[in-house]
């Protein structure tokens, strides 16, 4: 097995004083960075010890959401060994209690981060002290982004009430599932099974549940190992840019479909209403949450943050 194919660590036990959340999803433009930035601003106002990491390696722009134009150091300095520790790249933000590790736009092909640099990054994220770490991961289902998402607790999937976004979100989740199953199967040297899993998902039946049922019908204990591996993966879901009551319900419906057909539990955190003021705040380089503190979207963001904190105190 090549190093590239391995998940860095199968079971991560984050240090008890810290929770790591990754905000991701398959499609671009769903509002991942907006949500990551504003969740961080709100949590920092409550807890005073939040670190936001812009791990959108192909197109970082969290600093823009925070209204920050320049930074002395960024992730590029860390990956090119200009600084030895990830925390040395942290910058203070205009928000009390919130620090930012800015992504780099100075180094080409940063999105193709190699396996060892990814390992180094994960190791350093786990090493520094902060009460909350929020990682904004980029668009798509590359191995780097899948691993950041799988290793966080929980990964937060952002979708919009549009077929393209939903299709990409399911693709992203299926990719995570295959990544987890594959790592377990590789551990047991069952490489042919990997192809079978892919066939199972791309063929007529797309249900992971039915895949498990096949194995269970012949041997419960082996299915149990793989099923348990998946059961540890419990992402959350946010429906962003909701415009109607139907859009709000769609998140609950997606959670139901995921549970029944992908055999994982996904927790629906709620919906954030569509608001044109988000564009306005971006154009003004002014963070939304502080510019529109009483808007419906701000209230929804705060409720979602509270739900996350409740389950990860």
């Amino acid at each position: 097995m090549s190093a590239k194919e391995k998940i860095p660590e199968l079971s991560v036990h984050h240090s008890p004083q810290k929770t790591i959340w990754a905000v991701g999803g398959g499609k671009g433009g769903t509002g991942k960075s907006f949500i990551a930035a504003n969740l961080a601003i709100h949590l920092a106002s409550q807890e005073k010890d939040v670190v936001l990491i812009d791990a959108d390696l192909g197109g970082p722009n969290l600093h823009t959401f925070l209204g920050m134009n320049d930074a002395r150091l960024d992730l590029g300095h860390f990956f090119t060994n200009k600084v030895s520790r990830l925390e040395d790249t942290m910058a203070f933000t205009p928000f009390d209690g919130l620090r930012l590790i800015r992504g780099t736009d100075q180094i080409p092909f940063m999105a193709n981060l190699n396996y060892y640099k990814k390992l180094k990054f994960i190791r350093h994220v786990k090493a520094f002290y902060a009460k909350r770490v929020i990682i904004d991961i980029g668009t798509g289902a590359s191995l780097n982004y899948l691993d950041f998402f799988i290793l966080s607790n929980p990964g937060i999937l952002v979708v919009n009430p549009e077929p393209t976004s939903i299709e990409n979100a399911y693709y992203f989740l299926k990719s995570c599932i295959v990544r987890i199953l594959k790592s377990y199967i590789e551990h047991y040297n069952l490489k042919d099974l990997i192809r079978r899993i892919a066939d199972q998902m791309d063929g007529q039946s797309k249900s992971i549940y039915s895949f498990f049922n096949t194995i269970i019908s012949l041997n419960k204990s082996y299915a149990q190992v793989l099923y348990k591996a998946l059961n540890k993966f419990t992402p959350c879901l946010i429906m962003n840019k909701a415009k109607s009551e139907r859009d709000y319900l769609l998140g609950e419906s997606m959670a139901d479909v995921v549970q029944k057909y992908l055999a994982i539990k996904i927790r629906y955190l709620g919906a954030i209403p569509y608001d044109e003021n988000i564009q306005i705040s971006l154009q003004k380089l002014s963070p939304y949450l502080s510019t529109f503190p009483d808007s419906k979207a701000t209230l929804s963001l705060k409720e979602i943050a509270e739900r996350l904190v409740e389950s990860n105190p």
Partner: protein
Amino acid sequence: MDYYEILNLGKNASQEDIEKAYYLGKTTYNRDSLAHYGLLSQRERWYMLRKIEEAYQNLNNPEKRRLYDLKMLQKGAETGNRVYFRKSTLKLEIEDAGEKKSLWKRIKYILFSPKPKK
């Protein structure tokens, strides 16, 4: 999946919970819903709608529900409550599995055993 699992309900679900779950289920697997877009085939969607209807018809009627619960209790006593899907998953140990060769043999048997001829 039993009727409660189909509607995502606990065993103590109230009549109101059942109505809500039924509405959500019908909405989720409706032809116009986006929730299954790109994931479910038409066949799978129809199948789920049928199961939701069946679950609702049985749980919504107090007498039918009582008989169903009784049946489930008896089944649980006989089969040990399907523990392989219900165990706590807090502690995952990859070593839970049998030995490497044994696991490979079993899964190979599952996936590659010759299919019976029609």
